[in-house]
């Protein structure tokens, strides 16, 4: 056996000097090792990626759907209606005559007359203020004309029409009926909120899946962690491979999620196109796009890193040399 120590000067060697190059090298090595370990267990890895992918794909797909829906909604021609509140003292007959004159205009498709009593009933049922109105002595509402503009009337012409009508002596006030737009906007906002809520839950699920993957990885490498700690490995050194495992799993999951969204998009695009064709729209469906794919992948990576950091803080400390 060779027990000569010629090469080594003394035991009093140079202290460790952290070098950037060495640090970078260890990072690269940890990154490569983690990836290799994951590839050595393809089934377990694939299961994790699929679970994370689905958890990310679902909110992403819903979000995409919503983007398309609101884009379509903004392009739909507004079937706007104008309500003309007439002067208090104009009679019902005068109102009918006024309606007939208006109906002859080219920019008006139809005019109907709403008697003040009918208007009150409608108002009461619309607002649910029945009891309040029953207490009223007089009907405070005037007769009302409901004016439907012609289909080809654009926003500017509509405003001009509203101005013209407002200037007429018979008219007390012009009300642009935009309730349906408000309704649509509220609905979209509601659905968006739902998507955000379920998305948050799905992402939480992804974090739990990833954190569990890291926990298993930590368990599998318990001996290694013990030895590293025994011979003076710091937290950073012990933590590094697991952070990379999380990063890779997250990026893989994000990428797979993006692929799922793309697949889903292809799957629904044909029926969606025929639906749009029914509305005679030249609107083109918005896909995820390269930016969307990159964004989802980066998001996956960030979630992976976050989950790994959480799991590592929780579990690595518990593994101490005995």
């Amino acid at each position, binding site marked *: *056996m*060779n*027990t*000569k*120590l010629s*090469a*080594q*000067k*003394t*035991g*009093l*060697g*140079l202290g*460790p*000097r*952290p*070098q950037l*190059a*060495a*640090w970078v*090298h*260890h990072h690269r*090595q940890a990154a490569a090792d983690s990836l290799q370990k994951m590839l050595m267990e393809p089934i377990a890895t694939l299961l994790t990626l699929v679970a994370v992918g689905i958890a990310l794909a679902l909110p992403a797909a819903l979000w995409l759907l919503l983007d398309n829906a609101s884009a379509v909604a903004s392009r739909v021609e507004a079937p706007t209606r104008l309500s003309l509140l007439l002067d208090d003292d104009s009679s019902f007959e005068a109102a009918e005559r006024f309606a007939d004159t208006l109906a002859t205009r080219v920019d008006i498709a139809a005019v109907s007359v709403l008697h003040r009593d009918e208007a009150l009933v409608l108002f009461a049922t619309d607002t649910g203020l029945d009891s309040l109105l029953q207490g009223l002595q007089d009907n405070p509402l005037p007769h009302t004309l409901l004016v439907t503009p012609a289909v080809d009337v654009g926003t500017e012409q509509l405003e001009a029409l509203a101005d013209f009508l407002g200037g007429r002596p018979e008219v007390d006030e012009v009300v642009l009926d935009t309730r349906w737009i408000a309704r649509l906007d509220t609905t979209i906002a509601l659905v968006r909120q739902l998507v955000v809520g379920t998305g948050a839950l799905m992402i939480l699920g992804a974090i739990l899946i990833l954190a569990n993957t890291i926990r298993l990885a930590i368990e599998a490498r318990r*001996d*290694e962690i*013990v*030895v*590293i*700690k*025994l*011979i*003076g*490995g*710091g*937290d950073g*050194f012990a933590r590094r491979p697991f952070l990379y495992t999380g990063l890779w799993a997250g990026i893989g999951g994000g990428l797979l999620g993006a692929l799922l969204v793309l697949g889903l998009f292809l799957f629904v695009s044909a029926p969606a196109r025929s639906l749009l064709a029914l509305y005679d729209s030249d609107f083109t469906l918005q896909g995820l796009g390269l930016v969307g794919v990159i964004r989802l992948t980066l998001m996956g990576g960030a979630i992976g890193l976050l989950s790994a950091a959480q799991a590592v803080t929780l579990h690595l400390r518990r593994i101490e*040399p*005995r």
Partner: protein
Amino acid sequence: MIEFDRVNKRFEHHDALRDISLTIDAGEMVFLTGHSGAGKSTFLRLLMLLERASSGTLTVNGRDISKVGRRGIARYRREFGIVFQDHQLLFDRSVYDNVALPLEISGFSQRDIERRVRAALDKVGLLDRENAQPALLSGGEQQRVGIARAVVARPKILLADEPTGNLDPQLSAEIMSLFEAFNRVGVTVVIASHDLALISRLRHRIITLKGGRLVGGGGQG
């Protein structure tokens, strides 16, 4: 270099070490002996901060190690080379990678790592086995890999807990002469061993523990 001053270590209902006071000088080689349960491992574990003393002061390199906090432990342990009875090698990587681990932890460059790992393997006579898997080596070879890993970062202090516990007398003697060789170049060596026949043949101070008490070798060698 190492100083125990009235050190006690108490586990729930049991004193593993009682009132230990002694000094080990820089460059010394000492054996720590006693029956099983005498407190040898506890002695070494206190030095490695795997346990904390219940009372008393432990000074290493002039520093009271009770002042080393959780975050400082890793850096503190790097001051030692440590050899275990069961060598604690990682079986999922080569001999070379096992020996390189302390250097990677300390952030040495790849070139330095290569040079030092080869030098350490050369010293323990395993240069030709650097690519071998540790599981396929004999017990004596595994222990030599463990020693190479302990000395590769050139620590000033080498601690070994029953390093020959699983080896036959011939291999044990070889391992001990390896430790002596490191001691000759200035490394302070502390070896726990209950193999009195072996260690009394070597001419070094023998610290004897009995039931956690110091019963011999407490004075200077």
